């Protein structure tokens, strides 16, 4: 991977001039002595991950082939039921509906987060220093707010009767909103959840994007403007290519985080009304822990993992290819 010598610790990497720094071939003869060194360095991380993630994962897989309810948990009974849980889940219309909904939910959120986050990041770069500090402060506050706390506040903001949002809308002349029940419908509930998630996630994208823009060499813009490029052209020909790896990687992270947004969705309205806002992790929780039908919950969890893998496969392939070219 390329090294940014001009701004060592925080400059973005892997940028336009990507070939320049790639020194192919053997670099350090001394390293031969330590052929084992990388493996030793990796050992603690790998061991910890295998034990504390791999083991629960395998255990989860085992549980997914069992009929495991209150009784079996309490009495420590193991009742194998083969593929029954999977058959039941896969043949239920609910599961597929929830899966489709999860994917759409993730897509909408991630697009909003990335677009708005990028715009705010660019805005930060454009602001004067005082306004920039103010906006950064706002972003940091929103970012630092614990998920559980912010979810509670949102519930409260959008409450039907004493919620601030309804009060403001009503005062602003939209009187039918005075008693609007946000949790009453699928879309309005999703609106609240999406607002919450986007609000929580934008700071990460915006702040990092801003930080990344500060590392774009000024000369690139100068060259572009000499070529007569307008603002939009500069953006597409300089900023965007420079940001591309960053955007890819951030999108990947956001996909993972949004897809797994259990706390927000569950706390706001428990997947309601009528189970219409359940996404996969919520569905797994309600069917598993909520209904004390743990084997079923484990099966849904396994399927959730598979679906998340499929969603991110594209990115993982890019990474694989990219890593091939490196070092």
């Amino acid at each position, binding site marked *: 991977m390329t*090294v940014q010598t001009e701004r060592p*610790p925080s400059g973005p990497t892997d940028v336009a001039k990507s070939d320049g720094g790639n020194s192919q071939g053997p670099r350090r003869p001394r390293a031969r002595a330590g052929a084992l060194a990388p493996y030793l360095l990796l050992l603690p991380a790998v061991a910890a991950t295998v034990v504390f993630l791999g083991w629960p994962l395998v255990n989860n897989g085992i549980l997914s082939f069992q009929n495991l309810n209150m009784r079996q948990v309490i009495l420590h009974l193991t009742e194998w039921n083969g593929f029954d849980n999977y058959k039941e889940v896969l043949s239920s219309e609910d599961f597929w509906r929830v899966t489709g909904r999860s994917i759409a939910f993730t897509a909408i959120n991630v697009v909003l987060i990335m677009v708005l986050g990028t715009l705010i990041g660019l805005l930060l770069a454009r602001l004067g220093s005082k306004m920039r500090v103010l906006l950064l402060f706002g*972003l940091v506050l929103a970012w*630092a707010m*614990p998920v559980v706390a912010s979810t509670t506040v949102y519930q409260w903001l959008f409450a039907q009767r004493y919620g601030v949002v309804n009060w403001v809308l009503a005062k602003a002349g939209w009187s039918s909103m005075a008693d609007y029940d946000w949790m009453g419908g699928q879309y309005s509930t999703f609106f609240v959840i999406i607002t919450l998630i986007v609000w929580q996630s934008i700071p990460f994208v915006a702040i990092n994007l801003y930080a990344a823009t500060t590392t774009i060499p000024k000369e690139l813009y100068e060259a572009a403007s000499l070529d007569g490029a307008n603002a939009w052209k500069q953006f597409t020909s300089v900023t965007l290519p420079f940001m591309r790896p960053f955007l890819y990687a951030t999108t990947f992270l956001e996909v993972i985080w949004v897809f797994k947004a259990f706390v927000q969705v569950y706390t706001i309205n428990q997947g309601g009304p009528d189970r219409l806002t359940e996404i996969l992790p919520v569905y797994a929780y309600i069917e598993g822990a909520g209904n004390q039908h743990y084997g079923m919950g484990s099966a849904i969890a396994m399927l959730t*993992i598979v679906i998340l893998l499929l969603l991110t496969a594209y990115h993982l392939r890019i990474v694989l290819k990219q890593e091939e070219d490196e070092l």
Partner: protein
Amino acid sequence: MKRSLIGRVWPNVVAVILFIGLVFPVYWMIATAFKPTGDIISEDPVWIPFDVTFEHFKTAVDADHFGRMVINSITVTVLAVVFALVIGLLSAFALARMRFKGRRGFIIGFMLAQMAPWEVMVIAIYMIVRDADMLNSLVPLTLFYMVMILPFTLLTLRGFVAAVPKELEESAMVDGCTRMQAFRRVILPLLAPGLMSTSLFGFITAWNEFPIALLLNKDGEAKTLPAWLPSFQTVYGDDWGATMAASTIFAIPILLLFVFLQRRAVAGLTDGAVKG
């Protein structure tokens, strides 16, 4: 002329609107925490709590085992973050600087680990810990949190390590440093911002985690703070004032950490994110 004036004004206007939108939920949490109960449930919102009360904070802090929970939460979170940083840094160094067989496999492996849906594996984790007779202990929580934040930490740090010019390291080694010394004296100081911004992410994640904590540590003395937040939504109804007061207190450590790390953190996550 006119156009450029608008051009100069609109970013500021947008920034102010955004600022209000971003900060309002946080403000509302804090303001609610200071309002008397009568002002919290109110037909017309009480925008600014002139009639300030500390009653909700008192309720929140007076909860059973509060002190213990604070200590537990801090212990678990700090240890998990520190372990993750140390272990992660070792791997990050290997992945960023060394060539070896299977390197790609390790990277993909950690990316997969990053996707683990912990929330839905709670029962599997619970049964392991129960059968190992380790319930109500801080050890499993610390270890699980460490692994939860390890992939992100490691992959992010890898970006930071990669961003340190090799030449620096090499020249240090030419000056007679061993590789270890070169690492300690040259690379580590340059990694400081990276370590800080990464630790911030880890801290937030571990501090907030609750599905696992609730099931593993049910004993009063072993609970962590996330068990405390919802405890004001009781059979007597939701004590919003106390809930908000507790949420405010709960947010303080993270806010402090942000303020403390601010400059360094803000510039931070980019590199890792790019690599991640």
